[in-house]
């Protein structure tokens, strides 16, 4: 994929809430008038913004603000739940992800996802990493081996596990398991990496490792991370979106959100007055 088609300034209102000024990369993901409903309950309200490629964008906001819901819309994971529907659109490189011609399976293969609680399969470390290749029908040993080494090196896990690739992944430590899940998510060489509070179950040392990793991985991937830790958002992300009650309140460069937020609600949240 080559993100050239759409420029962030096109088709979008020029408020800083939608596209932070000074972002030179082309728009990669665009959310347009997006509403989302669980049954009758509306959880996202008229979301509009554009995410540039090869940046880290963090979603912050109190619990229930809709940040995870929005994240799970990018790879249409929400559709596994009963009674959900949306209005509006999300586009990647200008194409709607809800278009009938888009295969949901193909979409998810282009978008890696890392969950709050690490969820390696109860298989060997090796089989965990090659799972995305296996489901695409690739069983060539040389290619699988190469992918395992490349993916595990990308998450700085290779040296720790290279001698025990055949062992059960559930025997790893919490931080190692989460890094393994990231390795698995990038093994199929997606363009986008979604991370849903990837460090919330980890100790500070493991968290620091994952954060270093995120900064490293943004050279290759467009990363969106949901986090409850404002320190984490400020450490790893280029852009930050603040959500509250299902609405996008403010979207800007991370340093601007944390030093000079425009909205009162954002300021209250980041200074710890609520949430």
């Amino acid at each position, binding site marked *: 994929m080559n993100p050239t088609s759409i420029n962030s300034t096109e088709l979008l209102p020029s408020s800083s809430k939608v596209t932070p000024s000074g972002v030179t990369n082309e728009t990669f993901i665009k959310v347009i008038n997006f509403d989302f409903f669980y049954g009758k309950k509306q959880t996202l309200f008229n979301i509009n913004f554009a995410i540039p490629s090869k940046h880290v964008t963090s979603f912050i906001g109190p619990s229930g603000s809709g940040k995870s819901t929005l994240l799970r819309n990018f790879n249409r*994971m929400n559709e596994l739940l009963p009674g959900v529907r949306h209005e509006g659109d999300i586009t990647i490189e200008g194409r709607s992800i809800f278009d009938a011609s888009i295969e949901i*399976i193909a979409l998810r*293969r282009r978008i*890696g996802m890392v*969950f709050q609680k690490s*969820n390696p*399969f109860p298989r060997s470390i090796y089989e965990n990493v090659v799972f995305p290749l296996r*489901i695409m029908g690739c069983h060539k040993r040389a290619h699988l081996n190469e992918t395992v080494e490349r993916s595990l090196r990308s998450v700085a896990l290779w040296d720790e596990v290279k001698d025990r690739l055949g062992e059960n992944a*559930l025997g790893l430590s919490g931080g190692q398991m989460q890094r393994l899940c990231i390795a698995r998510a990038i093994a199929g060489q997606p363009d986008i990496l979604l991370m849903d509070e990837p460090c919330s179950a980890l100790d500070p040392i493991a968290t620091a490792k994952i954060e270093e990793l995120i900064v490293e991985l943004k050279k290759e991937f467009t990363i969106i991370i949901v986090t409850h830790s404002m320190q984490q958002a400020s450490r790893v992300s280029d852009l930050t979106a603040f959500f509250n009650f299902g609405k996008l309140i403010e979207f800007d460069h991370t340093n601007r959100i944390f030093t000079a937020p425009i909205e009162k609600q954002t300021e209250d949240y980041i200074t710890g007055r609520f949430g």
Partner: protein
Amino acid sequence: MMIPHSNPPHHFFSNHEKKTSFLRLWSNQLLTTLCVLFSFFTLVPLFSLLYLLIHKGLPLLHFSVFTKLPPPPGLHGGGFGNAIIGTITMVGIATLLSAPIGILGAIYISEYAPHSSLTATVRFIAKLLTGIPSIICGAFAFALVVLHTGQFSALAGGAALSILMLPTILLTSEQALMGVPSSYRDASYGLGATPFQTIWRIVLPEALPAMMMGMMLAVARAAGETAPVLFTALFSQQWASSIMEPTASLSVLIYNFSALPYHYQVQMAWTASLVLVAMVTGTNILAQLLFRRKFQ
């Protein structure tokens, strides 16, 4: 600064405390003892049954009971080889009929459409079916198979047992599938796997040991049932040459022989019981060994 006393001073362990703690400790001790005692009581019927089976069944247990035909009433010798084969055949037919339906049904209601109204109906009917007396299954298979084919047969016996097994297999398989953490499904779908790939590669391997346990429960129950087989396969003194003729089974042999006024036949019924229990237990242990998880 003085801290005002709100309570009169008292010792850390006052007499009152000692008294209540003694009562509480004592009642706790009593309950624990009762629980231990009664859990031993649950072992009593089990072990006395096993003792009785071995004590009464062992004397006639020779290799020949597996290879010979049942003796005519009043005569000695012989065995019940045809009944063993008959039971295995009928339980095999029943498993072949019920396992695919039960397992695929469970996959549908647990993985494909957990919230549909069809799922709710299937689950409800399956729960109702578990409570149906086994003799009704026999009568049903009699009407469905015996009346249509015009004869008692192993096929009819297998059909009766399959109705008995189906709800158990369906419900235990569904439980087994639901026991697979949903985080595995999330991971698999998130990586772009299809529902089939997710079920086949991730969910089923995880659920398999529990599913097999459920299947073994159903098999064990079916192997011991007399009523459905009595109606449908009847009994035979001969070796069966096809599944379309009256067939002997261990349970019906036990039922028949234990009612006879001859000591030898009653003894043989005990031996057959011992063999039946050993077969069921053996299959159970084998299944556990075969399907034990590779990891953990």
